[in-house]
């Protein structure tokens, strides 16, 4: 058994396959726009006083979450964080349920039990985040452990920011995933600031460089280039499925809004925001689609307007959703029985084009073949 980690360059050598159809590309743009417009609507609702607490968005980070989530098959699992709304949409959450969650309404994903971005739709294969970061890295590793123990070619993916890499739990998760070569994809969103704290006060060495010390590859990618993120995540997910273990992907991006709506970002140099606003992930992708992939401007406009009207429709539905019955506040502390998570939507054409649903379990429970060397019979070549 070779535990030697693939180098970042080897990982990148395997990218570049044109795995995306024209329809996939339209969907990538569509999901990024859906995140952008749904978050703009959420901010409006906040300003209207309809959102208790504060409001948190991931403006500028749309390419990272959409590109990474787009790689996953239905039976893969995700722990999505608070700058990653697009990943929820890729998995099948609708904007009305997101907006209702922010407003504490019955129609929100948590039905009012939890707020803002602290949700994950269990019916769509997601486990919602907690505020303590990066706790979900460990949960994702635990999910991946179960896949490995049962020799299932499935992947767990989670996100965290660069600030999270300063926490001891991050080390525990990376170390454990490395020891057991778990099928997990860690997406590090380096968005320059952890609340107000800049990267130089979080770490002395770029955390992506630590990956090799845990025994697996770490690779940096332009987090505002949706196809670049997709390509790296696709290879990482395939490596995981094939029993090659975890990957740490660092997506360089920029949080274009404050930590929350209450944060005026006075600590961010104006030039930095100007620089990153010229690299807006949605506008970059529109340019690429028209210049390199033959998309016509009217087609782009059609996508924009259909997303805008869909968000309007969803916002109306969210606002119409009632407040929850106070009686439910005492319900559900304990489970009566174990219920499996449902499967997520997997819009990438690869999943609809094949019989394979991204990790159909093998026959035979616990067909594990020994320490750290899961064999994946149904794994695909990248």
């Amino acid at each position: 058994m070779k535990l030697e980690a693939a180098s970042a360059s080897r990982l990148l050598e395997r990218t570049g396959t044109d795995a995306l159809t024209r329809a996939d590309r339209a969907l990538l743009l569509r999901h990024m726009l859906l995140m952008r417009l749904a978050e703009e609507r959420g901010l409006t609702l906040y300003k209207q006083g309809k959102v208790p607490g504060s409001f948190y968005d991931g403006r500028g980070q749309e390419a990272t979450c959409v590109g990474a989530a787009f790689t996953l098959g239905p039976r893969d699992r995700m722990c999505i964080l608070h700058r990653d709304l697009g990943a929820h949409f890729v998995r099948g959450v609708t904007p009305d349920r997101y907006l209702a969650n922010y407003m504490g309404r019955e129609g929100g994903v948590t039905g009012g039990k939890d707020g803002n971005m602290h949700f994950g739709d269990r019916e769509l294969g997601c486990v919602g985040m907690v505020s303590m970061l990066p706790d979900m890295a460990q949960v994702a590793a635990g999910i991946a452990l179960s896949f490995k123990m049962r020799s299932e070619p499935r992947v767990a993916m989670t996100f965290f920011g660069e600030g999270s890499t300063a926490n001891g739990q991050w080390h525990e998760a990376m170390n454990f995933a490395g020891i057991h070569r778990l099928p997990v994809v860690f997406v590090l969103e380096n968005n320059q600031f952890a609340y107000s704290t800049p990267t130089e006060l979080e770490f002395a060495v770029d955390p992506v460089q630590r990956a090799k010390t845990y025994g697996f590859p770490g690779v940096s990618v332009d987090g505002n280039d949706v196809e670049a993120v997709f390509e790296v995540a696709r290879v990482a997910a395939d490596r995981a499925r094939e029993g090659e273990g975890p990957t740490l992907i660092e997506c360089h991006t920029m949080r274009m809004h404050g930590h929350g709506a209450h944060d005026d970002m006075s600590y961010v140099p104006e030039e930095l925001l100007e620089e990153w606003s010229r690299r807006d992930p949605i506008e970059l992708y529109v340019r690429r689609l028209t210049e390199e992939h033959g998309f016509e401007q009217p087609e782009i406009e059609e996508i924009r307007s259909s997303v805008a009207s869909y968000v309007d429709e969803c916002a109306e539905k969210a606002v119409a959703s009632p407040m929850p019955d106070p009686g439910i506040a005492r319900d559900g502390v304990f489970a009566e029985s174990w219920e499996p998570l449902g499967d997520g939507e997997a819009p990438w054409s690869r999943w609809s084009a094949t019989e394979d649903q991204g990790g159909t379990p093998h026959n035979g429970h616990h067909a594990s073949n020994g320490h750290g060397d899961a064999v994946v019979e149904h794994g695909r070549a990248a």
Partner: protein
Amino acid sequence: MAEMTYLQAISDGLREEMRRDEAVFCLGEDIGAFGGAFKVTDGFMEEFGADRVLDTPLAENMIIGACVGAAIEGMKPVAEMQFADFIACGFDQLVNVAGKLHYRQGVSVPMVVRLPSGGGFSGGPFHSQNPEAWFLQSPGLKVVAPATAEDAKGLLVSAIRDPNPVCYLEHKGLYRHVKGEVPEGDHAVPLGEARIAREGGELSVIAYGSSVPLALQAAEELDEDIEILDLRTLNPLDADAILASVEKTGKVLIAHEATRSCGVGAEVASLVSERAFESLDAPVRRLTAPDVPIPFSPPLEQSVLPQLDDMKEACRELLAY
């Protein structure tokens, strides 16, 4: 039935569940080749393999986080904290992730955290604690604390089958000192049901864990009409059994080895005063450790942990009231 120590009964329950259900696996520090610091999993690696008797790195939050993730996907992990004290290092995953997932999102997390707890052997401030009250303040966690070999097996089996996170407090002082007849094969004791360990009519001693055998010995030596109620499960608490005993005897001593303030004793005393006030013939008393860390040196440790003479004196005072 077979005679087993409390320790053997824990091993037996865990082994039976691992044989019965392939989703059950255990993980923790030094539990594999070494068989665990107290040898609960001695021989398990040989029978079940290293995958299902997983030696973990020294990373308690990761142990609990791995349990959460694996449980969500249908495994039934049983984690061993080498000492209950070390759950402090895994507390975040336990109380913030495991305990709240079902309430927040309807995600059930069937997992057990085994917690070798308790003092009496000069373990000092980091190997002797009884941390149950930490969990009782954390919604979403069930908490059990067996006092007998039979319950050690039966409660562990039920904890493993429960769809929620369960903190299983196994008292180290009982491991080899408590023996009893234990049903072989499948044996489950339902969570949430107290047990009358000794029938009596003049005083109720409400106890759990190591305080149960202490109370039994005190009652025998005093030769008085004392009832001893073994709570067995601390969350959910068996309020009906507590109230029934208090209504019968009218006097209550609550005994536990854990520290005093905001502990199980405080909760039970409050329950009794709210719902059985009319039945009381004496003030509700508590016999607990004081609010101090557990000291190392034997005379110091003995002065803080409830001793047999303390139990007898507390019973005598209440009986005479």
